[in-house]
């Protein structure tokens, strides 16, 4: 074997041509770290999904971060009460880009059994941009895993060229609602 043939062979074995997006998205979707916080009963299904039987580690998601600064995914697992919603939005604002929100359960999607009551928000998508909805009351862990797979597919479909978090002009910080006399008010937007 001449030296050139040898180099050719080594190039075939060791060089891969792909797109930046693919590598970038593969890396991102293989280690989506969720933030570990639960708001109500749905949180227990989330805990189940993280434990041995359903095992989030298979998706690279076993690192439940107790701080928003290290988390990529916010799983809104449970009822968002009006008293809690400002803190949830604040946590979202503290997460670094790129970040995703998964609304888990009827309560987080629409208020669920408590819709239109005096103390429950009618779905967290009133205040946050939700990427994946997982319906159920509560959703089974399999449903949550399906939601994660959907999220992975969504991440793989994104491209670095148009991703909003590298653009200067895109404002991604959500306004934190404040507690008003009858419910939540977004400051500067007048009354609810």
């Amino acid at each position, binding site marked *: 074997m001449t030296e050139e043939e040898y180099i050719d062979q080594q190039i075939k074995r060791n060089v891969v041509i792909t797109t930046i997006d693919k590598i970038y998205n593969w890396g991102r979707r293989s280690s989506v770290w969720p933030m570990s916080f639960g708001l109500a009963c749905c949180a227990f299904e989330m805990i189940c999904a993280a434990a041995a039987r359903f095992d989030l580690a298979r998706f690279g998601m076993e690192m439940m971060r107790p701080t928003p600064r290290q988390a990529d995914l916010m799983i809104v697992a449970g009822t968002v009460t009006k008293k809690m919603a400002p803190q949830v939005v604040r946590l979202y604002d503290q997460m670094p880009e790129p970040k995703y929100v998964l609304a888990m359960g009827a309560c987080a999607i629409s208020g669920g059994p408590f819709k*239109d009551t*005096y*103390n429950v928000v009618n779905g967290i998508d009133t205040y946050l941009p939700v990427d994946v909805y997982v319906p159920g009351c509560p959703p089974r862990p399999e449903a949550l895993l399906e939601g994660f797979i959907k999220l992975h597919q969504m991440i793989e479909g994104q491209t670095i060229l148009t991703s909003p978090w590298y653009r200067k002009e895109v404002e991604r910080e959500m306004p934190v609602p404040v507690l*008003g006399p009858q*419910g*939540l008010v977004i400051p500067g937007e007048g009354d*609810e």
Partner: protein
Amino acid sequence: MSREVYERLVEEFPETSLEYLEEKDPAISVKADDLFEVARHLKEKQGYDYLSAVTGVDYPDRFEVVYHLYSMREKKGVVVLKVHASKEDPEVPSLVPLWPGANFQEREVYDLIGIRFAGHPDLKRVLLWEGYEGHPLRKDFPTEGYQTIGQEELS
């Protein structure tokens, strides 16, 4: 259980107007003015050392506060006390000096139904936030709740 307690109460407090309510759970109806003395007697003389629940009820013509008493030491109970409060100015005496456990329960009744407890050490909202208007478990509170943001777009 309530029957004997009632008879003893009538002996002890001849001048107060007590009433025995024969229901599924027998109860003793007390006037708000006599509540504190009756409760003190039940606690100190009859051994009812545990106040298990303070409940507020909204009837069409009145408010009512219901107390459930047990005795942990003598393993007896339950004694149910019912107190009426007027619609216009609902106020009953606080039982926190007798049972400190009444503190948060009375605050909750105040928060959700709006009955004031005279003599409560710190009567403020416990579940809802300061600055909330109205008492949501009252029957005249709008059932559909107040409008929240986002609702207009949905409906």
